[in-house]
């Protein structure tokens, strides 16, 4: 994805913006910016990063896009702090459509939350899972299966208890065996989707498993 962004193809750029705006905003929120300013900064940052000169520095063999983006964010943030940027008139700001419709509501967090780096990484992990879940939901073909998926997602990783599954089966009007099969299928597909999502952000040769473990550790808070 990074490489294709470097080719300056607009769809790739748009995808990039849609995918990573959450973590980028989380970074700025973590830095204590107000909600409005976060939006502006995120936009300005995207303009900055999508500049060919910056993208040129992306080395596909040099690791993960997450790290690259974080380094850029840090640099950019120090620039902002150094002489300030305004996102106002004449400002050379590309209006990337940041409202992608499914965007979660922006929180106006007082600066008591995680540090910027941490906030960025946590949000990154969430974004990966969220995108995988969205794709999974979209793959459910009809209303019946959509309902099935939405009921089973919260219990995918729950402990297998006979009574829970029996209750679920009753609610869904299925046999407990069918519920188990469905859970297994959904877990498997979600696994594939998460790996697909991650594979898009780690460059060639990068260690997918390492990224998985790191993200897991970040999300778990250790």
């Amino acid at each position, binding site marked *: 994805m990074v490489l294709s962004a470097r080719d300056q193809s607009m769809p790739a750029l748009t995808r990039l913006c849609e995918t990573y705006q959450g973590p980028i905003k989380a970074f700025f929120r973590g830095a204590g910016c107000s909600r409005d300013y976060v939006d502006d900064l995120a936009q300005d940052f995207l303009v900055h990063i999508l500049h060919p000169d910056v993208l040129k520095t992306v080395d596909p063999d040099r690791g993960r896009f997450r790290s690259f983006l974080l380094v850029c964010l840090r640099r950019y943030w120090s620039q902002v702090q150094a002489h300030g940027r305004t996102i106002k008139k004449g400002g050379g700001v590309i209006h990337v459509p940041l409202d992608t419709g499914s965007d979660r509501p922006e929180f106006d967090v007082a600066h008591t939350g995680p540090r910027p780096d941490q906030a960025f990484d946590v949000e990154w992990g969430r974004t990966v899972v969220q995108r995988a879940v969205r794709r999974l939901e979209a793959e459910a*073909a009809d209303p019946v299966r959509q309902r099935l998926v939405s009921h089973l997602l*919260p219990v995918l990783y729950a402990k297998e208890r006979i009574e829970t599954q029996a209750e679920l089966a009753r609610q869904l009007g299925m046999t407990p065996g069918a519920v188990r099969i469905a859970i297994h299928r959904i877990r498997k597909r979600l696994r594939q989707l998460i790996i697909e999502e991650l594979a898009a952000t780690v460059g060639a040769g990068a260690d997918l498993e390492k990224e998985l473990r790191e993200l897991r550790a970040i999300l778990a808070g250790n």
Partner: protein
Amino acid sequence: MSEPTDSAHCERCGHPLDAELGGVCPVCALDDAAAAPASPEEDFGAAQLMLDDVPLEGATHARLGNYELREPLGAGGMGVVYKAWQTDLERWVAIKLLPIGSLGMPEARERFRQEALTLAKLRHPNIVSIHDFSERDGQAYLVMEYVEGANLEGRSSECLEAPEKAAACVKAAAEGMQAAHEAGVLHRDLKPSNLLLGADGRVRITDFGTARPIAGQSDLTGPGVLLGTLAYLAPEQLKGGAQTASVRSDVYSLGAVLYRLLTGRAPFVAASPAGVLQQVTRADPPPLTLLNPLVPRDLALICSKCLRKDPRDRYGSARELAEDLGRFLANREIKARPLSCIKRMRRWGQLNPGPATAVLLGAVVVATLGVIGALTLEKQVAAVRARIDAARELAHREELRAYAQQLDEARSAFAANDPDRAQKALDATRTELRGWEYRFLDRPHTGGHRSWQAHEQGVSCLAANADGTRIVSGDWGGNLRVWDADAGRVLLRRRLHPDRIRSVQFSPDGRQLVTGSEVGTICVVDVETGMVLEWIGTQARLNQAAFFGKAGDVLTVNDRGRLELWCAGNRSPPTVVMWRLPGLLALDIHARSEAYACGDAKGRIHVGLVAKETETSADPPEPESSPIAKRTWQAHAAEVMSVAWSPDGAHLASASADGQVRLWNPASGDLARSLRERGGGVRCLAWSADGRSLAAATDDGVLLHWRLEGSAEAQVLSGHQGPIFAVAFLGQQHRLVSGGSDRHLRVWDPSSIAVGETFRKVHASGTIRVRFAHRESWFVAAGPEGELWRQDAETGETNWTVQSTRGRMGGLALTTDDAFVVSGGRAGRIEVRSSTNGALVREFTVGTFPIRALDEHPGGRLVAAGGDDRVVQLLDVESGTVSVQFPVQTARIGRIAFSPDGEYVLSCGPDQRLVAWPIRVTNALAATRVPTAVMDFDVGSGGIVTTIGRQEGAQTWLLPGMKPIARMENIETGFRAVVFAHEGQRLLASDDSGVLRCWDARTGIQLLQLPLPLPGRAVRDLQMSPNDGRLALVGSGGELYLLP
């Protein structure tokens, strides 16, 4: 199980769950993914969530009484059909529900009830049977027999190979319809998707949603309400609405279904519903056997009998149709017969009442002759062949019309600045039909303006001086550049600021510039030398800086919400004019009244007089009775990005981040006019010097240009790649300059650009003749006083200009190797010049009269010349010797052209008579003439000649005999110029109303029409570049425009 909430936690790891992830614990999900082999290639063959085979029997489904809804089978305007399981009788059924949207509409419910009643009346193996009609929880539903199988929509591929199958299907449907008709019910929406073919091979008719009783009783569709699917409706249903439907309308629809099954397409196909409508009512469908040669003649006859326009010519009932199909299937003689000659004429007469009488008379004569001479077999064969050709021709014309509609859709989409829709329409066109008109619409829409890369970073601001000769631009990196506006040449480069330059402005005398940067620095710069005259460091992030008054004072607005005045001579500290405002973003000063206008981040506008607000100004000069009082009003909901005073100060224009552009009365704060209500944010506004036009730079990458005296519709100028940050008018002219994130400066001449189209004016006036190079992209042109010049068609740059000493040029030609320019003059003078520099190479005299027309022979250095001596002569450019001289004509010669094969030379003059001479025979008897008056003509490949007359319109003829081919349609009077597109299949002409039209030369079908931007609207001449299909238009005032 409770819905996951933000407060829930993962049962396994204790991580908080959130609804955004569908209740999935992200930690566990990543854990799970990490546990599996982490290879993206792993088992991705399925690449899809597989739940189809998860046993769902017994699953909870949406229920309606005893029915469990399983999966939707189809949906339409009249309802949604589900496959459902009837629990008590344990069988599959089909349940039709009203769409959610129509639940509250009584007439929809009533229609639904009628459908149930209708179905209940019908019992036939070829009609789906009804089980039940009921209502539960406010949801009415209709339970029908479930047919395992598919509808006929997708079955035509089988029938293409085996027409008998199609016949059998339609026969069964006709039998079913006969039963319905006998029960007094018309279907009125028969189409392939309403005919189900069961696994048992039985056809069943379904969806009686639009059915109505044949006679009397209530009809829920009022008169004129059209129900059903256009392509399968009978013409009388389309003309007269639902009420005019009869048994024979259903027969028509069955015929249309048969047609579809046999050919894979509906009888009438067009790009838009209007096109279908027109065809169904007026045209004949393409002959079946032409589209599918496997269809037996008898079956084609049956089908065409169903599809006849006049209901009386069709089968009288569905039974008759079924019986005839039965006869066909049993290999017996069918009853259908081709429409008799008399009936055909009668029908034609009904469609074309005017000429009918005349033709009737003619027909009587022909018929008499026909009786006298018995037809020989040969003649019959020829007649059949002619009919086949005519059918082919008909199909071709139909395709061309559909193509023209697609092009029109693309053109209007471009005009509405919707390139995506336009591209879609263009992509949908058939490749083999595409010609000049397609390439014209499909060309990259980069705009016919001049543009150049001005900066290495995005252009953030720009300004033009008062006379429009200089442009100054600033970029995101703090660089300033001064440009020669005409040549696009850089005059000065300076890096002034450490960061983005926010604004730049010329001083009133045009000698100095003031720039304001993002980091709060202001520079005053000398325009000529680039020397920084003054440097002021402010303490805030500047949003705009502007000169105020003649003394060199500078006004700024900044992020702290202050409007500050930096007085010349004593820059520090500034005088605060206004403060405590939420981020002032925009500023403009009206120089004459010394009024300021600011826009802030909360969508408000503040106006006032600088002098009145500043205490330092001890004796404020009272500006000439300006009505501007200090005033603030709410102008927009979003940030005000730009404000601009009209030159007379009577209006204030403002633009906001949410794309609004509004005009205000600054004295009262009242809204005078709203020019745009939504769209991409607008960052900059500019007024023309005369105050008649306003331009806006948008984030959408287009410039908007309003002529305020005209309609409120904006002219859209597209070409920038990415947001535009700055726009300015060039001095007193109506040209614009803009710059944006794509680092380019672009100079536009809106007057030379029609909405959505791009015409580039390359010569202001005085062009009388143009000649394109054959192999390269330049042209030579001649003016009225003997000027001759060569211009580059790409850049518009003039390569050379010479002045002929012989005065006005008559005739201009370019040898086919592009080496020499030949021009005619007074007293038979012919000049030959080098095309590289315009130098006179040789000169000779042919006769004594003025030369008025020249053309080069395609084969070499031979030109044809003609003029007031009324003689066409062929002469060698090298030696000047006349090789051929044609006989004297009746009038002087105004225009000459060779046919592309070089075998004929054609000439025409003020007598409006076009003569074609074979060049090898100079006998007067060998000449052929066109029997109409001719204003202009052109010769295309294959010997097609096109002529245009002021009253006669455009026509095409075929050399050598000048046999007429076609007359161009939609042509009114007032045409002057015509030209073939260089591939010879398309014809372009323009009339006095300023519309350029493009036709297919062989059929005369109009493919494209474009409004021309010419003032006065008349076109004197059209020329097409043989090299790249570029079109040149010479306006009545001698303006020269190029179309890329």
